[in-house]
């Protein structure tokens, strides 16, 4: 039963054949366990696209060490139990050399543990929970995307510089990730002399945020920070707008709050939103322009953060394997540690101590539905200390 994703691998293979490259040895298999159905399918799709584009480019240029790259996709339904099951299939039955694609942090952590038990390396390109390269770090888990702390540091740095003396009201989703992102923001804001005048935590999937607006209005903030995501963002911002609370107020938040998946639905309420992000399609660099053009040509839409990070991952892997001269886990792990490589977002370096990629962060402001870049924060200022103690 050939599935659609195997079909894509076939196309890549044929494409590679057609470009008169002869591939020695068997191909390098990379497993991708990503949500292709369910609530996060909108994130799984750009991840897939970013990887596919990179794989095609790499194969067209001769593959990794003369071996072609083959991507094998599995749907994790954003459920860690399913992710682990599919990942195990990829490790044991398909015998992939490397695994990526996980979106939510629960899945990344669980699959990372599985990677340890199967002596294989995995990387996430989306999960931004600090714990993944922090207190729950693993010698087999890498992360090429910016984590929450980097996003938050970039944002508070910008607020401190551009809007000193702001009064911020924080609205966070009431779960672990939400609470820690608000806490990180408050800490960073305080360091940059910005006052947080109030906070409220709203249950996930709340339909109606109007019940919290009283508190918001009573605090009379000039800036609102939020770390909700997906549908919640559409509703929160839509309702804030409906009640006129957004008038004269600067909205800031985490980079996952408004993404290409929900920006259309958020509509006018997204105007002026500022965040600290690892990417914007408007980054003005030759690598990015090339990437955006190639992405548009292949998928008829602009790339986003998830696509760019996934694209970058494959190149990191390529660099590491070529440096190590093999796909063997221990050698690749060594090669990845401290690796610096070029990505559409500039140069990224993987910190050896915790396997977290460091990069300059961009301050992105939404203007007319576009993610404009209005500032940049150097990599070292954005990334926090290495708190990984396991290795």
């Amino acid at each position, binding site marked *: 039963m050939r599935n659609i994703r195997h079909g894509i691998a076939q196309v890549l293979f044929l494409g590679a054949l057609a470009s008169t490259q002869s591939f020695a040895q068997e191909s390098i298999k990379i497993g991708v366990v990503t949500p292709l159905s369910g609530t996060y399918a909108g994130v799984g799709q750009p991840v897939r696209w970013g990887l596919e584009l990179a794989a095609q480019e790499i194969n067209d240029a001769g593959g990794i060490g003369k071996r072609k790259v083959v991507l094998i996709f599995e749907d994790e339904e954003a459920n860690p*139990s399913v992710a682990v099951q599919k990942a*195990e*299939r990829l490790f044991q039955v398909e015998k992939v050399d490397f695994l990526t694609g996980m979106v939510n942090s629960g899945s990344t952590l669980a699959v990372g543990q599985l990677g340890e038990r199967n002596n294989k390396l995995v990387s996430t390109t989306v999960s931004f929970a600090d714990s993944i390269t922090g207190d729950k770090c693993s010698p087999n888990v890498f992360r090429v995307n910016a984590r929450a702390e980097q996003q938050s540091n970039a944002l508070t740095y910008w607020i401190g510089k551009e809007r000193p003396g702001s009064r911020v009201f924080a609205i966070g989703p009431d779960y672990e990730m939400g609470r820690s992102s608000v806490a990180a923001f408050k800490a960073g804001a305080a360091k940059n002399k910005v006052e947080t005048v109030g906070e409220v935590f709203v249950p996930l999937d709340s339909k109606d945020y109007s019940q919290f607006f009283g508190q918001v209005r009573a605090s009379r903030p000039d800036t609102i920070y939020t770390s909700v995501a997906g549908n919640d963002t559409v509703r929160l911002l839509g309702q804030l707008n409906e009640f006129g609370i957004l008038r004269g107020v600067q909205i800031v938040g985490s980079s996952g709050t408004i993404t290409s998946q929900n920006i259309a639905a958020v509509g006018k309420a997204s105007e002026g939103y500022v965040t600290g992000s690892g990417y914007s399609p408007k980054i003005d660099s030759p690598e990015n322009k090339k990437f955006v053009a190639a992405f548009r040509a292949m998928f008829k839409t602009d790339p986003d953060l998830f696509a760019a990070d996934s694209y970058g991952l494959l190149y990191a892997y390529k660099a590491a394997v070529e440096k190590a001269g093999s796909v063997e886990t221990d050698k690749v792990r060594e090669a990845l540690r401290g690796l610096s490589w070029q990505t559409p977002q500039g140069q990224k370096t993987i910190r050896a101590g915790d396997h977290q990629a460091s990069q300059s962060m961009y301050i992105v402001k939404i203007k007319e539905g576009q993610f404009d870049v209005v500032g940049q924060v150097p990599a070292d200022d954005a990334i926090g200390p290495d708190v990984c103690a396991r290795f």
Partner: protein
Amino acid sequence: MHDRQSRVMRTNHVLMMLFVGGALVSSALGIASGDTFYLRLGTEALIFGGLALSVDLLLGYTGVLSLGQALYFGVGAYASALVLLHVPSFSLAMIAAGVASLVSSILGGLIANRVRGVYFTLITMGLAQVVAKIVYNSRELGASDGIIGIPIIKIGLGAASVSTADPAGFFLVVLGIIVALYVFLAYLLETPFGRVLIALKANEKRVPFLGYSVWRARMVAYVLAGVIAGLSGALYPMLRGFVSPELMFFMTSGNGVISTLLGGTGTLVGALYGSVLLVVIKSAVGSWTEHHLVVIGLLFMCSVLFLPRGLLGIVHPWLQQALSRKPPPEDVRRHVPISDARS
């Protein structure tokens, strides 16, 4: 007791032996081919089969549909995980899971058993949802990320020991536990208490007139089902090395119900066949399309509409016939097998 019910159970035993036989053959094949993935997938199917078993105890025998068994499955899983994080002892983990699910199902039962029928179902669904949300938000329980880092342990069985990382070994251990649960339930159903449960399903209003307490019988059945779900859940972190709140979500309970219905309500063994079938379908369909829920939904609906006794219901009657020592009594009144889920 030699009545229609015991004849039905005898058929179930035969089907169970077939199931176990099939499982043993597959594990032999697995060992021979050095497979790990399919053995572990099968182990997972058995673990969720235990959950389905608890659904069947309530739906097929006591006549009540619980849409919240995943709650106890999750409680067992978390209890087991928490124990294993600190003490790598199989028996301690199982005992902890058993106690935790016992206590929570008593509490749950006190709330849910005050009502019957669809209200019972809604309460069980609501209970699971509410507790799952609380777990999802509890930092001590790992919050939305769950708990990882459950170590691989060794299960001591007398002289030998089996590691939970050993695919075939652990598969056989889990198989053994599920068989033990089945045997226990089968034995229970042969006792007068078991017959009271069946009477509850057949006609709850009449049972008090026979001198039995409906509430007491339903409480015991509910708690038993909760403990069975909890013990099965305890095995999950041993297999996968982690637990997450999704184990308590509605979809998990839903899968249990779907497995039971597809396999055949009221047969106990149907729950196990159904669970395996569901895993196979999800795996197979999941490879060709993302929209596997449509397929599963359709299968489920067809099962409710056309195969009320599930897939096993196709073979059950003639197997029963073949096994009975005398032909079924010709009676003026219309005899309907008690295990018929719908009449």
